[in-house]
């Protein structure tokens, strides 16, 4: 893959950071946007804008069609059975909150168990914490091993007759561990336990096929998929959407409104209250087209190469500890440098034009487990090259130099 060509499609790379070319290694946080996405949003506002679904005038018809086209595209992209299974949310966080709130309200009671892992992002823990508080439920954490992965046996052991849902990440945003979702779904379905997958890091970096994975819920963050901010997606099997209560209430999600009662339509309408992120969803259609244009297989292959190159190169630096060493790993390298705090690393790297993230990456439980308060994280996107890794590696050496170690 020619990353020069790819980079040229992302306007951000025309900019210099502190006089140096931008080496963007923070895609797990949020990815950059190709010109086609940016221009689609401008074009939508300039030529097609109207509120959707609510008016019969021409602009509204066009806007509605563009919006629903994205739902169609996405349905095919993730191989959902129907567009009714695709709900647009504000972000992946809202998608998980939606499930926790509605499923929690209807199916989780005092003493019931919610099974998550020590790898989870706060987005896949805090919403369940609220259910715990509200319902008196119990949260069980499947343990993460030294390699930064969760063994499926650890999950198996924690499943009981009280387990009401398993909520698990597809790809850890700290260790890069890829979880064996299909196997976990098989395990869970023996006991008819639904599985929610936090697909924030899965969707941009793996082939995601809902029929193959078989999970009940899958949360997506569009801004990590080269898409606009302000949109997330909840995929949910129709059988759940048919029985779960609505989440937020407002215009567009009602059927009949009386003073003493309100009835609701089916999905996705039931879950899309108020004015939607029209321009953002329309813009996102170009992200899907972009990913499909490059080809998800090519993306996987390319990122694998860069990841391996990066791991090898960085491991050579003796002062570095890489967080986790999962067998099955996605495009993330979290690390610490002896004697240098991750925040200081990030600052020094930034002087070299290298953008990484430092902190707990919304995974305090995992960091505590690893015995650290914070780490530095380099995460890959489709635009990264081996040269980017070389710059990163040199910048890390600079950290050692500044700190005289």
């Amino acid at each position, binding site marked *: 893959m020619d990353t020069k060509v790819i980079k040229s499609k992302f306007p951000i790379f025309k900019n210099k950071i502190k006089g140096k070319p931008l080496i963007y290694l923070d895609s797990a946080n949020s990815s950059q946007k190709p010109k086609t996405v940016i221009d689609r949003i401008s074009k939508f506002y300039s030529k097609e804008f109207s509120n959707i679904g609510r008016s019969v005038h021409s602009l509204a018809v066009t806007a509605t069609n563009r919006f629903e086209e994205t739902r169609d595209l996405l349905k095919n992209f993730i191989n959902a059975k129907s567009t009714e299974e695709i709900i647009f949310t504000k972000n992946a966080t809202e998608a998980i909150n939606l499930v926790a709130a509605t499923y929690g309200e209807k199916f989780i009671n005092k003493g019931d168990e919610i099974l998550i892992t020590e790898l989870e992002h706060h987005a896949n823990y805090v919403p369940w914490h609220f259910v715990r508080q509200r319902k008196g439920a119990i949260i069980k954490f499947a343990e993460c091993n030294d390699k930064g992965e969760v063994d499926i046996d650890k999950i198996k052991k924690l499943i009981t007759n009280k387990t009401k849902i398993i909520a698990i990440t597809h790809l850890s945003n700290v260790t890069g561990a890829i979880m064996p979702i299909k196997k976990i779904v098989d395990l869970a379905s023996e006991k008819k336990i639904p599985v929610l997958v936090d697909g924030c890091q899965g969707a941009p970096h793996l082939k995601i096929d809902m029929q193959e994975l078989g999970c009940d819920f899958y949360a997506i963050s569009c801004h990590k998929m080269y898409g606009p901010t302000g949109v997330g997606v909840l995929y949910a099997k129709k059988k759940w959407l048919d029985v779960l209560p609505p989440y937020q209430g407002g215009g567009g999600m*009602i059927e009949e409104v009386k003073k003493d009662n309100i009835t609701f339509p089916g999905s996705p309408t039931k879950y899309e209250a108020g004015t939607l992120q029209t321009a953002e969803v329309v813009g996102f259609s170009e992200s899907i087209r972009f990913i499909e244009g490059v080809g998800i297989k090519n993306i996987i292959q390319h990122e694998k190469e860069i990841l391996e190159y990066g791991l090898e190169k960085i491991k050579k630096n003796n002062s570095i500890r890489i967080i986790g060493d999962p067998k099955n790993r996605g495009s993330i390298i979290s690390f610490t440098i002896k004697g240098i705090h991750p925040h200081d690393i990030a600052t020094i790297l930034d002087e070299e034009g290298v953008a990484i993230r430092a902190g707990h990456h919304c995974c305090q439980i995992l960091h505590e487990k690893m015995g650290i308060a914070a780490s530095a994280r380099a995460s890959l996107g489709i635009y990264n090259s081996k040269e980017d890794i070389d710059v990163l590696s040199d910048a890390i050496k600079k950290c050692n130099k500044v700190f005289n170690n």
Partner: protein
Amino acid sequence: MDIKELYQEIVLDHGKNPRNKKKCEGFNKDAKGHNPLCGDKVHVYLKLDDDNKVKDISFEGEGCAISMASASIMTETIKGKEFNVAKKILEHFINMLKEGSKISINSLSEDENTTMMSLSGVKRFPMRVKCATLAWHTFIQAAEGKKETVKTEK
């Protein structure tokens, strides 16, 4: 194209003076339809005999000219026809609304055909297709004995 192609005289006539707008006597099936977006509502009453023939059909409701005309035309057209034929007509009707194709069903008289075709202008107004099909879907619902209200959503 002129807006008059959507609001043809036949459509306006049926819209203003809908035929069979009442509860027909001796109906043995009925169903409700609802378009929550604009508030169109229709209630179809149906007398289906043992051979699945539409002995009588009528409707009540309120809505735009297109939905009322379509309901009225539907009742006129399928009264006396087999349920299967009615289903076939609906298929052609939907194709007309969506693809612009002609309706060609042997069991439709020339008059009936002309009347049905008066709704062909809807094709250019995709947001109005639901108005034109609501009564039909509700009729199918009634005939098949399903209980839920037909809903045309976003």
